[in-house]
C-alpha cells in the first residue's frame, strides 16, 4: 500500500498560566492508502491534540506546534498557509468529532449544513449541493433521506446525528477520514451500526481512516494497525493481531487486562493500572509510564526509551518488554 500520510516528530505544547503543558511529544507514524489506523489512549494522552495539530485546528495561542512534519501528497501540512490548510480540511481530510449532539449547528437545517463544505470546496451550485446532500444521507443509511434534508439536528437521534456528521465529513470525498471517539457517546447497538458503516464506506470509497478511541475492544475488528499513546508519546505500534496477541508495552498490557469481555473469557478480577498519568507540565526525562509500571527497572528511571523494533512492523518504547527476541518475564494478560 502506498504511503498517504507521513508524520514525523510532531510536538505540540500549550502555554498556560501554570506553565507549559507538553501535550504531544515527538509523535511519528505513517498512514497507508485505504488503511484503518487505530489510535488508543486515556484522556489526556495526546491522541486528539495530535490529530488537531495535523489539521492545525488547535487554538494558537495558547497552543503551539513546536516542531515536526506531516507530509501529505508531498506537502507539509504544518507549513501550509491558512487558505491552503482550510482547503485541505474540508476536501482532503474529513473530521468526525466525538459528540454528535454539540458539533452540529442547531439552527441550521441538515441539508444546508451538508451543502456548506461542497459549496465552498467543490464550487457546486446550491441545487447540485442539495442533490449530493441527499445522496450522502442515503449513503450513510438515513431512512427517508429526502424528507429529512429540511429537518434540524434536534429531530435526529444520537446515532442518526453521528451518521450526519460522517456524511458531512465524506461530502468532498476525502482521502483520510479522522474519527475522534465517534462512538463513545453512543449505545453499543448504534456503535455496531456506525462501525459497520465506516468499514463499508472505507471499502467502497477507498479512503484511509484514523479512528481515535480509549477502548481497545472496538479496534479489534476495525483497525489494520494500532498506535498506543501515553503522556503525549507513542509507546507501542503494531499490526492489530500482533498488538492483541503479543503486546510489548506494560501500558498496552494494562489496557487489555482492564477490559472485561462479553464472551466471558475474563479474569476473576480486572487488572488495575494503579496511579495516574504523569503531570504534563513537567518535561519527561525518564519513561513516563515508569511510576505505574510493574516491570520498571533502574534504567527506566534514567532514560526514556525510544520506540524499539520488536519485529518488522511492531515497535515498543520499553526497555524491558521491547526489542527483538523473547520478552523478559511473564507478559501474558490473564
Amino acid at each position, binding site marked *: 500500500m502506498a504511503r498517504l500520510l507521513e508524520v514525523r516528530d510532531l510536538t505540540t505544547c500549550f502555554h498556560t498560566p501554570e506553565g507549559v503543558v507538553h501535550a504531544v511529544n515527538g509523535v511519528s507514524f505513517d498512514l497507508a492508502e485505504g488503511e484503518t489506523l487505530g489510535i488508543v489512549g486515556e484522556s489526556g494522552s495526546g491522541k486528539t491534540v495530535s490529530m488537531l495539530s495535523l489539521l492545525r485546528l488547535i487554538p494558537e495561542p495558547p497552543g503551539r506546534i513546536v516542531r515536526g512534519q506531516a507530509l501529505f501528497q508531498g506537502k507539509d501540512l504544518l507549513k501550509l498557509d491558512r487558505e491552503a490548510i482550510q482547503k485541505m480540511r474540508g476536501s482532503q481530510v474529513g473530521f468526525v468529532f466525538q459528540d454528535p449532539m454539540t458539533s452540529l449547528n442547531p439552527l441550521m437545517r441538515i441539508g444546508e449544513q451538508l451543502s456548506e463544505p461542497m459549496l465552498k470546496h467543490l464550487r457546486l451550485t446550491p441545487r447540485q449541493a442539495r442533490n449530493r446532500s441527499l445522496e450522502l444521507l442515503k449513503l450513510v443509511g438515513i431512512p427517508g433521506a429526502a424528507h429529512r434534508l429540511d429537518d434540524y439536528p434536534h429531530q435526529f437521534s444520537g446515532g442518526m446525528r453521528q451518521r450526519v456528521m460522517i456524511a458531512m465529513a465524506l461530502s468532498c470525498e476525502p482521502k483520510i477520514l479522522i474519527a475522534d471517539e465517534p462512538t463513545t457517546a453512543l449505545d453499543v447497538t448504534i456503535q455496531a451500526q456506525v462501525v459497520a458503516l465506516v468499514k463499508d464506506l472505507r471499502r467502497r470509497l477507498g479512503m484511509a481512516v484514523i479512528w481515535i478511541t480509549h477502548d481497545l475492544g*472496538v479496534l*479489534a475488528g476495525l483497525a489494520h494497525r494500532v498506535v498506543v499513546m501515553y503522556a503525549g508519546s507513542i509507546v507501542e505500534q503494531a499490526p492489530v493481531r500482533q498488538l492483541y496477541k503479543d503486546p510489548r508495552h506494560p501500558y498496552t498490557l494494562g489496557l487489555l487486562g482492564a477490559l472485561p469481555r462479553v464472551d466471558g473469557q475474563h479474569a476473576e*478480577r*480486572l487488572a488495575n493500572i494503579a496511579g495516574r498519568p504523569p503531570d504534563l507540565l513537567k518535561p519527561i526525562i525518564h519513561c513516563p509510564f515508569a511510576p505505574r509500571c510493574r516491570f520498571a527497572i533502574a534504567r527506566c528511571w534514567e532514560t526514556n526509551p525510544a520506540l524499539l523494533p520488536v519485529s518488522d512492523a511492531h515497535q515498543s518504547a520499553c526497555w524491558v518488554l521491547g526489542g527483538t527476541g523473547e520478552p523478559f518475564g511473564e507478559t501474558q494478560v490473564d
Partner: protein
Amino acid sequence: MTEQEVLVRVEDLIKHFPVARDAVGRRRPGHIRAVDGISFEIYRGETLGLVGESGCGKSTAGRTILQLYRPTGGRVIFRGKDLTELKGRELRGVRPHMQMVFQDPYASLNPRMTVGQLISEPLLVHTRQSRAERQRRVRELLELVGLDPDLDRRYPHEFSGGQRQRIGVARALALNPEFIICDEPISALDVSVQAQVVNLLEDLQERFGLTYLFIAHDLSMVRHICTRVAVMYLGKLMELGPREAVYNRPLHPYTRALLSAVPVPDPDLEAEREPALLTGDVPSPADPPSGCFFRTRCSLAADICRAEVPAFREVRPGHYAACHFVPMEGW
C-alpha cells in the same frame, strides 16, 4: 440454587411522565411510559445488572425504586415495608439503608462543597453525630475508597474523574447502607479507571455484604460484575436470568442482538464475527408499538407479535423472557 433471602421485591412498577407537547412543540397531551410494569427480586448480597439502550427506562427504574421519583403504580418491598406507601419521616427512616452512586462524577458533586462536607452531608441529615465523630468517619471513608484522608478540605474540581467517583462511593457508604443502586457508575470514565472503580465496588461488596443494582449499558462490564442480569427495552423487562445463562444461552431476540453488538477485544474472533445489526431506532416511549414493544426491530416478528403482548414467562428455572417465540421446552 439454595433458597436466597429477598432484599428488594419490585412488583409491577410503573412510572409514567405526563407530557403536554410532543418533540416539536405541538399540543398533544400524553404520557412517556418510562417504566411500564416491571417485576423482579434482588437477593441479599448479589449484584443484579439492569441493562438496555439509552432511553429504555433503566435509570428511571432505579430512581423509582429508591422513591426519588414516586411511582405511578406498583410496589417496592424493602425491609418488609412497601416503600411506595411511605411518606415523610417513615421514608426518611428507610433512606439510610438504600443509597445511590450516580453516573456523572463531574455533575453529581456540588462544586462549592469540600470533599469533607460532601461526604459528611448524609451524616448531618440522618445522624446526631458530633462534628468530631463526623470528621473521623469522613477520614475512615476516604481511606476505605482508596483516597488520602488528608484531602478532605479539597474541592471536587481538584480530583480526576475516577477519584470523584470514589468520592461518590464514599458518600453512598457513609450511612452503612445494605443496598446501593449504581447508575452507570463507570460510563464516564476511561477504561483503565473503570477497572479501578469496579474493583473497588467488588471489594466493598465482599467486605460489607452489600447488595447492588448495577445499571449499565456496557454488557461486558455487567458480565464481569453481576450475578444476575435483567434486560430492559422501552420500559419493560425482556429477559432476566443468571449471568451465565443470559450470556451463553440468551432467550430473547433483543438480548441476542445486544450481545452480538458488543465488540470482543480479539482480532481473530472479530474477523469471523458477523454482528446481527439492529436496524432502526428505539420507538418513542410516548407512543410504543402494539403487542410486543420490540417487534418493530425484531427479525422474528410475526402477526402474533403485533396483536398480543408476550407474557414474561419463566422458561428455565430462574430464567425469564417475554417473547412469543421462546419455546418452553428444548432450551
